[in-house]
């Protein structure tokens, strides 16, 4: 069972749950104000959106919501946690992932297809993923900032670096590899009608948990 966390202002929860189901797992929602994840949760998704309207800093308020204590326990027990876009920001603000997300180099929202290469094939998320992925990005604060020498880099933008991230980083994991965050939106790339099914690889990893 994949638990998709909803904060006030979360937008991509339905798309993420649909993607999880398309990858073969059951999906349910976890409510930000609760202190426990739903019973039977094997993997957690923090989906995209504008939790708390991006007030203060993107992800800052959500990272202190009651459900995050349960997400932290789940991660510390080795459970899989995938943060997408705002979910990535929340995980960085919560200290579960290294670095921070700064405003894009263009200082504007950027919505476009992005070409990615898998930089680390040893995480549970990427062990069975193709070497390159085509997945859309859509964010205002998506330029990862951190130390690429110490952080575990999982995904990089290929060719151009559309948001101005350090070392063209698109996704990182914790040292153990069970918590991953990425700015691109794999739930928008799980259906041939939408132009790409490359996002399914990440959700299949969750389904296998």
């Amino acid at each position, binding site marked *: 069972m994949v638990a998709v966390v909803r904060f*006030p202002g979360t937008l*991509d929860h339905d798309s993420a749950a649909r993607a999880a189901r398309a990858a073969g797992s059951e999906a349910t929602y976890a409510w930000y104000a609760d202190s426990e994840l739903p019973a039977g949760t094997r993997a957690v998704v923090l989906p995209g959106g*504008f939790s708390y*309207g991006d007030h203060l800093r993107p992800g800052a308020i959500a990272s202190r919501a009651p459900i995050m204590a349960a997400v932290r326990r789940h991660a510390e027990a080795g459970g899989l946690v995938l943060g997408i876009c705002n979910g990535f920001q929340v995980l960085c603000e919560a200290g579960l992932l290294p670095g921070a997300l700064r405003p894009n180099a263009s200082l504007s929202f950027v*919505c476009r297809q992005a070409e990615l290469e898998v930089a680390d094939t040893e995480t549970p998320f990427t062990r069975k993923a193709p070497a390159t992925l085509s997945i859309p990005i*859509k964010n205002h604060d998506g330029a990862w900032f951190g130390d690429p020498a110490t952080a575990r880099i999982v995904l990089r933008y290929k060719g151009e670096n559309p948001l101005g991230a350090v070392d063209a980083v698109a996704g990182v994991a914790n040292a153990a590899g069970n918590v991953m965050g990425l700015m691109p939106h794999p739930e*928008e790339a799980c259906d041939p*009608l*939408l132009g790409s099914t490359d996002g399914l690889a990440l959700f299949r990893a969750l389904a296998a948990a």
Partner: protein
Amino acid sequence: MSAESTLPLHRQLGLTNDEFAHIPTLIGRAPSDPELVMFSLMWSEHCSYKHSRPLLKRFPVTGKGVLQGPGENAGAVDVGDGWAICLKIESHNHPSAVEPFEGAATGVGGIVRDILAMGSRPIALLNSLRFGELTSRRSRHLFSRAVAGIGHYGNCIGVPTVGGEVMFDARYEDSCLVNAMCVGVVRADRMLRAAAKGVGNPLVLIGNRTGRDGIGGASVLASAELSDDDADKRPSVQVGDPFTERKLIDCCLDLADADLLVSLQDLGAAGLTSAASEMAAKGGLGLDIELDRVPLREADMAPAEILVSESQERMLAVVASADLDEVIARCRRWDLDATAIGVVTDGGRFVARCRGEIVVDLPASALTDDAPTYAVPIAPALAPTPLDLADVPEPADLAAAWRGLLGRPSIASKRWVWQQYDHLVGAGTIRRPGGDAAVVRIPETPRALALTTDSAEMHCELDPRGGGRATVFEAARNLACVGARPLAASDCLNFPNPEKGSTGWRLQQVIEGMSEALEALKVPVVSGNVSLYNESPERMIYPTPVVGMVGLLERAEASVGQAFRTAGDLVLIAGGGAPRLDASAYLGRADGAPAMPDVAAEVALIDFLIGAAEAGLLESAHDVSAGGIAVTLAESALAADIGVSVALTQGRRADEDLFGEGGGRVVVTCRPDAEAALMSRAGGVPLARVGTVGGARVEVQLGATHVHLELGDARVAYESAIPEALGR
């Protein structure tokens, strides 16, 4: 404002002496000050359509599948399997001219709440924008800030902005246009209406607290020409809070799913006054409101201020008494204020109390149904005269003219705009912005919707009836290009002051032309909006009837794109009509006499395209519009990064052949083995093979004249024009 303060109150509020004199005949006494303020807003052009209502009756509003026509928060049509879609387009022109970021953002917020008020889930946004030329510093500011505002709001509420259009012309220098359209989906049997029901039922205000923002917006901003003292009007522009709007969407859909709402209405222009009086009048009932219960941002607000505040992100619901506690508990769960502020009464009166005293006691219908209407002067303009080609200098270098046209901001790629909009959220966007029409999935069905907004503004200036037809047919052609059958339309009629010159006549003629085309297509107008007075002492806008049209694809996977597909595919031109430079983008001004669109030929072309797409015969389709066939070919080639080579028949002059417009033409491509089947379907629609897809150039042979652009050069011109004009 000092000069105005010597005027009597009703004049300061924008009512005429006759309107003021009429009020006592409706209510049997002189109005109180709060009542007078309410009348001034409800009888403003923005709320009452007093100058346009008689003309709007011409529009076809009924037809197969119409579930809700004009008069509700939005129109609705059946799309099969028990699903309905709701649609509406609305202007936020005047607020955007005063403060473009908040003006455009709250325009999005308002149209989304109109869709939400039907109990429907918003699934797509579009916007139609007009600004002065980007050589103007003010227009660069208005354009870039309006785009930022639309993006900020739409992105944060999680409704994809999938399409629209932008055009730049000096005629919009003083009066920019910002029209926003929203489309939603709802189970047809679960659709909500605004009409109040059930005497004794509580009236619940949900969402933001009420403040002093936007007081008088409808009358001050939207119903008069703007002048130099615009800065004084800044406090009338509302400020948007998309985070609260998102919670409002989640909360209202939750309440609707749980069957806890009797009726629902958004608070827009004229705030509580408009929302409550419409709910009461539509239900034939009354409302009794305790103003002391309205949650305020500032404690010392006067009754009139509470009644007309245009604070954003508020909805008004009628609920059953037994459900009140559950409704309030659910709103709390979504972290929203919800307060019972009154009750539904019989007798049809709008009563408001403050500190135990009755401050308003009016027949609700006096504010809505009894608003005055005026016949606008119908003074025909001179008939246009055809362009004399001798007056149009012939370019020495056709390729340079072509490249120049691709680099003109009105024609160039709008990537800079839509890349700032989340056009994907919801994982339902099948065809992204940049094509003839966007295509979005209808959730939980195999079907998809195609969406477009269009206007033939220069054509409307010269020949408003023909321009009205051209506006509708361009929208329908754009839908047909992606394979969708036009289903329903919403219109936003942006015009100058209808009381002056030939504007009233143009309004009437545009409506006539649009109606003729809509009737031929069997497409009803199910909702709409009128924005008048878009002029300054120096300039009038073109008559700009923006039509937002929705089409249906029975199979989502059958949609067709504008991008060429495969080298070797055949290129054909479908549709007839000679290209003309009259009122063309190439000419760049409203001059000449564009041809009257041929209704039967346009309908036949649209039917052909839809049938060919359904039969799977088309690899691509792209409408010939601004910039003529040369721009159409370049756009299809750039979208695919594959070249094309065609030979066209020579007409009067090479630039007219390449860049001329009009006549309803579409460039389609097919696999070589599909050509015979395509030809056999054409019937009376002219269909001629003109070339082949392939190579790295867009090349055209016109008799002995050869013109070509390298794809790379074309791309630089097309993609860099807007960023460069903005200095980015």
